[in-house]
């Protein structure tokens, strides 16, 4: 690592996904960061702690004794009107479970990077998506990042989306543990002053520290109001779907990158399409390039936003394909795998549907090889579907 990257104008630097995320946090300079270390997330918080210790940010860093406490501290800070962030993965995310629901239920716009890692048992420190997929129904917005650059920019997207007046929900920014979190890559850091201006100040409508307008937070709601409160939360997710594009357009003016619900890579005229997320999309792009060069009609839909799920847009993008394979890094035991399930759902209203195949790969950090992706494309081009779950890279 090239030491501490200091205040900067827009420049290209070699950074891991974790350091890129820490750089985004430095530029955001949140009021409070409460975190607990866990591999492979630790480097985010270690690097950020250096920024705090060196006075580069003036964040209140809270060193807590567990992830449950980390999220609890963030919730308290967020309700007090502060901009609060943490980061975690795997068992750490699992230990937060209870508080994840509190954060979204109390409408706290907390931003949390997650370096996706498998859940125990067997114990494993490597990448899969079982941690964040397990948390997919907790009312958090989930954005997935292919590269360190995307992880960096997604943190800004997440922050402004979380704090959007119509949304007020917590957001996870996922990157693949080790694969992205520990891979040194070219990252273009945007100008400090520009990013500072982009994030601005958090202006909460209500806060515990607004003594002139006292509020009650976390009151019990039984049969009388609970249902209504939860329905509002669901409505906020609907707003998040719209606000995502609006915030993305604003961020785009600053960074020059685009933030659609998903990237369409070679989708135009594609007969065989792979739907996947995160680093697997990068590997798939390399295969699409090669197969397209050989005249094969293949394409990739790289989903960025998983919650809320852009059903309509995914349907429109996939309806013309002949055969679609969904490659994902997690199970939903006893059910269709999570991403496949959503893609299948999105196609229900389509008049003419493509054939569908579910593929699970890479659990516990098993490498996804280009030959695995190529094999999947060949099967999809041949229209070969099995009606069940298939595996890539399974021994």
């Amino acid at each position, binding site marked *: 690592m*090239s030491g501490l990257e200091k205040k900067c104008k827009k420049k290209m630097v070699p950074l891991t996904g974790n350091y890129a995320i820490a750089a985004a946090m430095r530029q955001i300079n949140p009021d409070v960061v409460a975190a607990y270390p866990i591999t492979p997330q630790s480097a985010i918080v270690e690097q950020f702690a250096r920024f705090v210790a060196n006075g580069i940010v003036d964040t209140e860093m809270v060193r807590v004794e567990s992830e449950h406490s980390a999220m609890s501290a963030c919730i308290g800070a967020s309700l007090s009107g502060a901009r609060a962030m943490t980061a975690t993965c795997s068992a750490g995310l699992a230990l937060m479970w209870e508080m994840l629901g509190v954060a979204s239920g109390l409408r706290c716009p907390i931003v949390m990077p997650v370096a996706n890692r498998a859940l125990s048992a067997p114990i494993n420190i490597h990448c899969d998506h079982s941690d964040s997929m397990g948390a997919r129904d907790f009312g958090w917005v989930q954005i997935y990042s292919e*590269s360190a650059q995307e992880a960096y920019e997604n943190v800004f997207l997440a922050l402004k989306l979380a704090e959007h007046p119509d949304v007020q929900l917590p957001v996870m920014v996922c990157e*693949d543990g080790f*694969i*992205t979190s*520990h*891979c*040194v890559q070219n990252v273009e850091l945007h100008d400090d002053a520009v990013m500072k201006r982009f994030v601005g100040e958090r202006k909460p409508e209500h806060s515990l520290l607004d003594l002139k307008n006292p509020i009650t937070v976390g009151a019990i709601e039984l049969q009388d109001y609970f249902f209504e409160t939860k329905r509002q939360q669901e409505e906020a997710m609907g707003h998040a779907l719209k606000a995502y594009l609006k915030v993305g357009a604003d961020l785009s003016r600053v960074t020059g990158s685009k933030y659609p619900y998903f990237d369409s890579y070679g989708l135009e005229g594609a007969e065989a399409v792979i739907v996947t997320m995160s680093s697997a999309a990068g590997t798939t792009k390399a295969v699409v390039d090669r197969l397209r060069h050989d005249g094969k009609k293949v394409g990739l839909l790289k989903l960025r936003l998983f919650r809320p799920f852009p059903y309509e847009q995914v349907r429109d993008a996939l309806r013309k394909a002949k055969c679609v394979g969904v490659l994902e890094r997690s199970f939903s035991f006893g059910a269709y795998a999570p991403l496949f399930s959503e893609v299948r759902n999105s196609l229900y209203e389509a008049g003419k549907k493509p054939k569908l195949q579910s593929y699970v790969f890479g659990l516990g950090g098993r490498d996804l090889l280009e030959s695995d992706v190529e094999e999947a494309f060949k099967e999809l081009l041949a229209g070969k579907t099995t009606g069940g779950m298939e595996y890539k890279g399974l021994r």
Partner: protein
Amino acid sequence: MADAKGIVEIRIHGRGGQGAKSASQLIVEAAMDQGKQVQAFPEYGPERSGAPMVTYARISDKRITTYEPVLRPDIVMVIDPTLLEQVDVTNGMTGKSILIVNTNKKAAEIRNEAGFAGKTYAVDATGISIRKIGRNLPNTPMLGALIKVTGVISLESLIEKVEKMFLHKIGKEKTQANIDAIKEAYEKVA
């Protein structure tokens, strides 16, 4: 050497604690300073000091999207010669690949030992580092050998990067020792 596929793929074999990971980062960071697109990542297994480990680097003129491990390396660099007996360091190498080994033996001997028919280079990076740096730190001199035989970046840009990365961490004297070691390996690799 990036002509055929527009990208140079490097695999480094070392043992935990020998600096294979730092070496891969150093080389790609130097390449990035020259405007290249890069990637450096280790194969993370159980991390134990002394255990065989592998790290990868890619240097390209175009954007790198794949996260596949390097399976068909253009360059294989072996930081610890005892690995030749334990690990198939030539796995995935083609006739065009280059093998560089830290050893006090001649390249011809290494070619036999590794069972590799392609271009093979030997450099006594351990000897050089003990003489110049005063410790067995073969990873930086190995990079001197690497850039000499492959030309992935210039000697000047590697030295510039070493100065930038090392100076604030280990001071002027030790940084210069590392640079001297790189230069000697650059000259002596054969």
